[in-house]
């Protein structure tokens, strides 16, 4: 084969390779539907489908048979009276409280503030004032009261059920009880030997007066 033919082939190969760098990516947009992608297959133009009406859920717990766990209410008694459960539906562990702390800071603190006082950033920007969660009136309320407020909303506060799972709601309720306890703590709550300086500071302040 002559030299010029080889040259031409080499050039052709180079040009072909060059074209590769400019390939349009058909594979980058495949006909499948990704999360939140639009689709012209359905009338409403949305690729993600809502649950059809009258669907019966079948996962564990989907029937929500435990009233205390799902509603915070005790089952109606003989007279048909139901009320807030005075107990948590399951025992709250330290892990639950830590989870509750984290979730409270995400979902409640924007309005009710980090310490529960009710002066969160969104309220400061003009939202209707959110009540203090650590006020006297709410101290007697059981965890279920707060679970209920998160699940069903309260007055002009909307329900947070779409954003927060059932167990997380209970964890938040438990953490609100922790906040109440901590906001109303006295020096006597400090266990002996844990932080003696704090107790001393308190007595020092008292003797100064």
């Amino acid at each position, binding site marked *: 084969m002559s030299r010029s033919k080889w040259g031409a082939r080499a*050039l052709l190969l*180079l*040009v072909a*390779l*060059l074209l590769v*760098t*400019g390939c349009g*990516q058909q*594979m*980058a*947009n*495949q006909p*499948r539907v*990704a*999360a*939140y992608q*639009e689709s012209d297959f359905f009338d409403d133009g*949305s690729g993600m489908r809502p649950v059809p009406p009258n669907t019966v859920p079948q996962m564990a717990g989907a029937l929500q048979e435990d009233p205390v766990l799902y509603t915070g209410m005790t089952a109606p008694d003989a007279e048909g009276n139901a009320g807030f459960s005075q107990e948590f539906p399951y025992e709250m562990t330290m892990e639950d409280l830590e989870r509750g702390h984290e979730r409270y*800071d*995400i*979902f409640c603190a*924007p309005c009710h503030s980090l310490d529960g006082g009710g002066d969160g*950033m*969104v309220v400061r*920007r*003009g*939202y*209707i004032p959110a009540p203090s969660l650590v006020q006297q009136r709410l101290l007697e309320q059981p965890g279920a009261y707060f679970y209920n407020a998160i699940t069903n909303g309260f007055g*002009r506060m*909307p329900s*947070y059920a*779409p*954003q927060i799972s059932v167990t997380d709601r209970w964890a938040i309720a438990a953490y609100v009880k922790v906040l109440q306890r901590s906001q109303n703590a006295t020096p006597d709550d400090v266990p002996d030997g844990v932080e003696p300086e704090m107790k001393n500071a308190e007595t020092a302040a008292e003797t100064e007066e």
Partner: protein
Amino acid sequence: MAQLFPRSANTMARLSIFGGLFTVLLLFGLGFMLTRSPVATREGDQRVQPVQFSHKHHVGDIGIDCRYCHTSVEDSASAGIPPTSTCMNCHSQLFTNSVELEKVVNSWETGEPLEWVRVHDLADYVYFNHSIHVRNGIGCESCHGRVDEMPLMMKAEPLTMEWCLECHRNPENFVRPLEEVYSFGYHPPIDQSVLGPQLVESYNIRGNLDDCAVCHR
């Protein structure tokens, strides 16, 4: 017979052969650079959104956590885009007569979703999952930049394969303590060269994260 070409034509011929080769290589190089440039990856490009939603206002100024709106980021592949009802949690009472928010209220009343323009869009042949990154101490900031300073959402990183691999080969340069995943402007409390390997160890981050099958499956 008289010579048709002057002697200098030899040099010209050589020059044009090498020059041609050089030009082809240059075009190659340009092609590669172009596909990686912000022009092609649309890095730093702000899109026109249906509502001028500002992460700077909501995250930077009032300090709402990412998970308030992107609720599924810890548990699933997709971070999740908030439904209109999430906006209405606050905006049913707040700035109700703002022009921008009229569109949000409309969407709420008619049930027509707001059609946000996608900013980050990996090719469909790449598998990506948020939860595994977030749970292994990779901060939003490492991939999305200073979201808390963005009046309009934009891509802060190229999201090319090269870029993913930069971290997959050396995750110890990027990992954070879990409580810092959602913070911005984070600085490691101790030297990252000490902290990084410790965290990689404690999260049990595996090696071989640059195997093709990790992302192309």
